């Protein structure tokens, strides 16, 4: 039995350390889903936190808020560098917006990571009254995945080479390009851990 405290950065014993961007939003829910898979995920709020992690989840929340906090925390540039170097990332909702190459209805000063060639429209499904839940047929999963969409981004274009893993009413809602997976819904809001498991086992 090692005497190293859990989460103290001894990656050799525990495999890749997964981080969750914890500036704002549903980061704790992602950590809970990962914990139920036995994965102790680190909250990332500063560049020092970022240095420790090998993969990152970008949670849902307000993308305008996260964008501002990425700048003030000094995380934006080092994170952009790590992502450009191929760090695996799973972005949900606001996280999808941060990863997209093109965003409509964003604030003019909102910056992203240009990681996956898709066009998304912020709040493209409408206001909260248009938020919804539905069952999705996801490639690679035997049974449907129950998905919660909250003021979700609408995927309006998917570039060549981007894999579509799930659609809702013919609109892609879960897409992947290599190490970048993004969802317009919130797998962290249900007890179903299969998408988190898919991300973890890909590391």
């Amino acid at each position, binding site marked *: 039995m090692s005497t190293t405290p859990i989460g103290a950065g001894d990656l050799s014993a525990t495999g890749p350390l997964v981080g969750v961007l914890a500036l704002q*939003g549903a980061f*704790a829910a992602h950590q809970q889903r990962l914990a139920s898979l036995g994965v102790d995920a680190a909250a990332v709020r500063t560049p020092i936190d970022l240095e420790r992690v090998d993969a990152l989840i970008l949670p849902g*929340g*307000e993308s305008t808020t996260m964008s501002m906090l990425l700048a003030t925390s000094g995380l934006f540039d080092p994170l952009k560098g790590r992502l450009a170097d191929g760090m695996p990332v799973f972005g949900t909702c606001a996280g999808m917006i941060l990863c997209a190459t093109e965003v409509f209805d964003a604030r003019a000063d909102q910056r992203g990571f240009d990681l996956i060639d898709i066009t998304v429209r912020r709040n493209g499904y409408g206001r909260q009254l248009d938020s919804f839940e539905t069952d999705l047929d996801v490639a690679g999963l035997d049974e449907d995945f129950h998905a919660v969409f909250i*003021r979700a981004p609408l995927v309006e274009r998917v570039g060549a080479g981007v894999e579509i893993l799930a659609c*809702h009413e013919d609109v892609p809602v879960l897409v992947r390009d290599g190490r970048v997976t993004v969802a317009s819904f*919130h797998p962290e*809001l249900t007890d179903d851990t299969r998408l988190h498991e898919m991300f973890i086992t890909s590391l």
Partner: protein
Amino acid sequence: MSAHTTGTFPVKRGLAEMMKGGVIMDVVTADQAKIAEDAGAVAVMALERVPADIRRDGGVARMSDPVMIEDIQGAVSIPVMAKARIGHFVEAQILQALGVDFVDESEVLTPADETHHIDKFAFDVPFVCGATNLGEALRRISEGAAMIRSKGEAGTGNVVEAVRHLRSIVGDMKRITQADPAELFEWAKRLQAPLPLVQEIATTGELPVPLFCAGGLATPADAALAMQLGAQAVFVGSGIFKSDDPAPRAKAIVEATTHFRDADILAKVSRGLGAPMTGIGMDELDVHYADRGW
């Protein structure tokens, strides 16, 4: 449940989850709403007067004019909340028709019903309600609230009541996790709250919906204090736009709410913000808004 269902409880609660770690700011004009969004607010509360002015003016405080709410909806891309009077379900119906993202059934407005709160399950729009203690929080949740905010004392710039209410709610939740199953019946009776919700807290240690803090927060340190005491996000009402220089204060409170355990960052963002709102002591108050609601 397979096709495409709106207005469900998970969908309502989901928006509250997305606001965690954030700051919801009271705004009275589209310009203020833009300042709030620029500063990183996760949502704005659209109202005609901030609580400090409602307190000063006296009289009956009601739902805001729809024109003013629509102006603010048109000015920002973040969620827009608005207040209905306690028990005034028609004001809530109007707010839902306007497409607001969250309704605050708020003690800051003059109550319309001294016995009944709104049946919030009857709506597709999510509701937030105030609470001074755990029993009140659980009664609001049993009526369908998707978010609870500790009440504090709005419009005072004084954090003392917010601290009292948060400590009461969080403290009782901690005690319930230590109780044995037989004691939970007594807890439910004492709190005047549904037993299943008390049993859920005993298992999870948390409220069934997100717990935010409101009422009297005026500084970045106040926001971080609320977060360290167990709030999952904060509302700042009069504290921003009644201060000398709202924009930098708003941004500093957003940063403090994210980095609430990092005293170096809190020290950095607290510098040079100008004068906060003056604030008032609890013994100077004629009306305690927190006493409204049952």
